[in-house]
């Protein structure tokens, strides 16, 4: 019996690509002469023993010591058979051996070898790994889809020793040679089991991945094949029906348009790329329609189309005058711009903002400008717009994405330099969906808008040639940065005189034409028009007036159509029949005012109005009561007025008993209309002074102005509209803050001549002007001081 330490000399059989483990049988085919010689030597010996060792590199035909691993297995030849010049062997592994040194390398390897001890360590980890390895082995068997009658683990577990199980599993698995060898070389069970566990885990992962790939490839293949088949069928059906391939025709058409269109280089590249993408897309793909609409939009945009400007100044002035009465400032500004364009065609178009009450012709003025310049005209309303994407478009990734309204308008215009009117810029909304005003900043900034990027288009578009005009009813609601970019032109309300001119010159001819009449059929004398303006309309603009004239014209055309047509001259008395009873009565100033009532002037978006401030004492009351739908600013203004009057009580000759014994109620009719702003301050102070002193206010005097607690009168806005409202009401005397003197120049000459203006700097002056008796008291007081 050989012991462990015994050194023996054995022939060495080098094998390729595999390792022989102890206790296991292995069939071998021996072909190499060198190996055959080693086998012969072993068979010749009485024990039939040899050492089997793995060769490091399978390509080496005559391995030397360096070409084989140091650790191998002692084997006994159990069977031998010769066939076709080779030797078939069955060898049985016995135990592990280590090569000490090579005794001979020719004609076959012979080495001095020593047996290695068999590992026999135990422990929890060995047991745990052992179980894990069994589970892994089953998993791998499943993944490899081996339809074995019993699970591997069941077979393996018949072998008691964990290490022997590892040897057995290793011989079953197709592990790398290096891994197999490392298992053989492991000097403890723990080491061998750990390694085996790693290898099996890796193997299982590889197999899982492979299975996944196989499944995926199979399903992809079948879907593609199905699609291909259906497409072929469709094609066959179309050919049978004699239909040409519609998608190809579409793409061909787009391609022709691309060739004809004058596109910037960047755009051309992008379009060509999208087009080739479209060709590759199946028609049914959702992307197909999206891409097609996009391409059509891009090709329809006027990238390089410009209309020729008409730079004839005389012609422009004629057009503007023909369309609009007066509005001198605006027309001058437009003529200036034309002159600049004539001298410098590269000049940037201005961005104008028309501000004024409704119906004064802001929108139609835009149309006239376009006509005067010979440019296309497009308008869009921004009123209530609260989504930035409306202006700038949605990215194409969204379903139903559309270009922004700006680019849509440009596409409609068909030229890159239209007059683009953005109506109601003061009525932009903004909420969590974004702030369209911010998008407008970019669009309206000449420094940025040559490179405007619509989200949908996703290409830069040059907006710098566009003549932008915005309109608004009030400047207060326009964001500051936006206002900065625009040149503001005010279109104030029209006076009665102006309305009359506008009616005679524009409205009557237009309405007659629309009703199918000529000036011979219908005559509207000046007094009739004045009557309509005064009794049937109340507005800053001329919309109601135009409607009323239109109504008269229609009534007359009915008579002609019925056949009893006689040329008609409409008298003021006839109007009630045609338009119904007049809805407005002339706003006559109240003939006589009681103490505590003052005449104020208000500015609204639709023009100016006269409003009365009424105050009464509430005996035994304490507080200041304010009614008439007043805003916060107006309420505070009333409190300031009361505080000021109280502080001046002594000078005004008001007794303390009156002040302390009574509360005050201030009401501003009409009660249903909301009112706000500080400009009624003077009227409130006057009303309170009148109330406390019991002296009535002059009924022919109206007033406006903000007051401070120290008695200053500050300037207010809307002077023109307010004065016109006072005049309509028959008031001839107006108290104004001195700083508003400059605004009087806006008034037509005839108004200025007919009215008296009192310019004041302090509340005392206003009181003196409004309540002359009080003025005497005040001057007496001053004299005493």
């Amino acid at each position, binding site marked *: *019996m050989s012991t462990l330490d015994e050194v023996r000399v054995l022939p060495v059989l080098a094998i390729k690509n595999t390792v022989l483990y102890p*206790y*296991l*049988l292995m069939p071998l085919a021996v072909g190499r002469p060198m190996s055959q010689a080693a086998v*012969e030597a072993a*068979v*010749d*010996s*009485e*024990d*039939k*023993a040899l050492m089997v060792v793995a060769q490091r590199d399978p390509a080496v035909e005559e391995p030397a010591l360096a070409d084989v691993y140091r650790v191998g297995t002692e084997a*006994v*030849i*159990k*069977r*031998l*058979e*010769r066939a076709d010049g080779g030797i078939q062997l069955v060898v*049985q592994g*016995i135990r592990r051996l280590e090569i000490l040194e090579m005794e001979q390398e020719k004609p076959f390897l012979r080495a001095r070898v020593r047996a290695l001890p068999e590992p026999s360590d135990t422990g929890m980890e060995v047991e745990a790994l052992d179980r894990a390895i069994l589970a892994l082995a089953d998993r791998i*068997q499943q993944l*490899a889809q*081996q339809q*074995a*009658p*019993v699970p*591997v683990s069941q*077979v*393996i577990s*018949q*072998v008691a020793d964990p290490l*022997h199980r590892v040897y*057995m599993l290793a*011989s*079953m*698995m*197709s592990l790398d040679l290096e891994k197999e060898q490392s298992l053989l070389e492991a000097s403890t069970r723990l080491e061998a089991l750990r390694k085996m566990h790693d290898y099996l885990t890796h193997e299982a992962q590889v197999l899982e991945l492979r299975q996944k790939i196989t499944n995926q490839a199979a399903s992809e293949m079948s879907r593609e094949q199905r699609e291909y088949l259906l497409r072929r069928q469709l094609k066959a059906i179309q050919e049978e029906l004699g239909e040409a391939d519609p998608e190809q025709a579409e793409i061909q058409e787009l391609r022709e348009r691309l060739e004809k269109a004058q596109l910037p280089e960047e755009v051309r590249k992008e379009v060509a790329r999208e087009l080739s993408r479209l060709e590759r897309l199946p028609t049914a793909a959702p992307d197909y329609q999206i891409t097609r609409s996009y391409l059509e939009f891009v090709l329809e945009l006027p990238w390089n189309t410009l209309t020729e400007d008409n730079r004839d100044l005389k012609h422009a002035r004629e057009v503007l005058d023909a369309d609009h009465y007066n509005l001198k400032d605006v027309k001058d500004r437009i003529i200036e711009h034309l002159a600049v364009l004539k001298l410098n065609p590269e000049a940037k178009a201005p961005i104008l903002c028309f501000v004024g009450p409704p119906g004064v012709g802001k929108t139609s003025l835009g149309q006239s400008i376009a006509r005067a310049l010979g440019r296309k005209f497009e308008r869009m309303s921004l009123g209530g717009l609260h989504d930035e994407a409306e202006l700038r478009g949605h990215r194409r990734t969204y379903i139903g994405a559309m270009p922004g309204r700006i680019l849509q308008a440009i596409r409609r215009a068909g030229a890159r330099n239209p007059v683009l009117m953005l109506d109601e810029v003061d009525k932009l909304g903004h909420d969590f969906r974004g702030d369209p005003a911010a998008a407008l900043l970019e669009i309206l900034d000449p420094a940025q808008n040559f490179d405007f990027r619509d989200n949908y288009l996703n290409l830069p578009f040059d907006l710098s040639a566009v003549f932008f005009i915005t309109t608004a009813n009030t400047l207060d609601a326009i964001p500051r940065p936006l206002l900065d970019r625009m040149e503001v032109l005010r279109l104030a309300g029209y006076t009665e005189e102006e309305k009359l001119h506008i009616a005679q010159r524009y409205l009557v001819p237009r309405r007659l034409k629309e009703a199918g009449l000529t000036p011979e059929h219908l005559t509207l004398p000046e007094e009739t028009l004045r009557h309509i303006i005064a009794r049937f309309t109340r507005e800053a603009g001329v919309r109601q007036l135009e409607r009323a004239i239109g109504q008269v014209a229609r009534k007359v055309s009915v008579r002609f159509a019925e056949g009893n047509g006689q040329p008609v001259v409409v008298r003021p008395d006839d109007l009630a029949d045609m338009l119904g009873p007049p809805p407005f009565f002339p706003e006559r100033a109240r003939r006589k005012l009681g103490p505590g009532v003052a005449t104020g002037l208000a500015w609204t978006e639709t023009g100016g109005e006269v409003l009365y401030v009424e105050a009464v004492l509430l005996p035994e009351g304490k507080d200041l009561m304010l009614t008439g739908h007043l805003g916060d600013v107006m309420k505070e203004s009333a409190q300031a007025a009361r505080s000021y009057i109280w502080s001046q009580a002594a000078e005004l000759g008001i007794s303390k008993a009156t002040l302390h014994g009574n509360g005050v109620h201030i009401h501003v009719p009409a009660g249903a209309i909301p009112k706000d702003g500080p400009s009624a301050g003077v009227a409130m102070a006057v009303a309170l002074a009148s109330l406390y002193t019991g002296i009535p206010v002059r009924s022919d005097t109206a007033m406006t102005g903000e007051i401070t607690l120290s008695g200053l009168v500050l300037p207010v806005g809307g002077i023109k509209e307010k004065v016109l409202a006072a005049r309509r009401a028959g008031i001839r005397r107006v108290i104004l803050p001195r700083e508003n003197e400059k605004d009087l120049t806006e008034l037509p000459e005839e108004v200025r001549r007919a009215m008296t203006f009192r310019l004041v700097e302090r509340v005392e002056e206003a009181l003196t002007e409004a309540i002359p008796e009080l003025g005497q008291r005040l001057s007496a007081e001053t004299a005493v001081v």
Partner: protein
Amino acid sequence: MAGHFERLMHVLLTPAARAFQKTSWQPPADIYRLARGWLVKFELAGVRPEELEVRVCGPRLVLRGARRDIRLEEGQQSYRMEIAYNRFERVIELPCDLEGMRLATEYRDGMLLVRFEARGTLDEHVG
């Protein structure tokens, strides 16, 4: 994979005990019941008696040894080999305690005969 599969099937279809042996071979054995004991017959042709070791341990009979080949002719070349050589070990377990029995061995015509007779208490070495 094909080789892997073959190996797997080989293992699966071979009883583990046979695929997995601790020694290179095991001699086949016949066991007879006698009136007063047992007779175990091993086929051990070509094994030199001095290479044999018989041991009794409780109910088990352990036979160990080695068959060593002999050269019959100079220049002979093995053409086919079916006989197993080298060490063997065989353990026979019988349904009674063997240590209390008398043991006798006899080597006849390549067969080793091991007899157990009641009353015997000796362990004997053969050869």
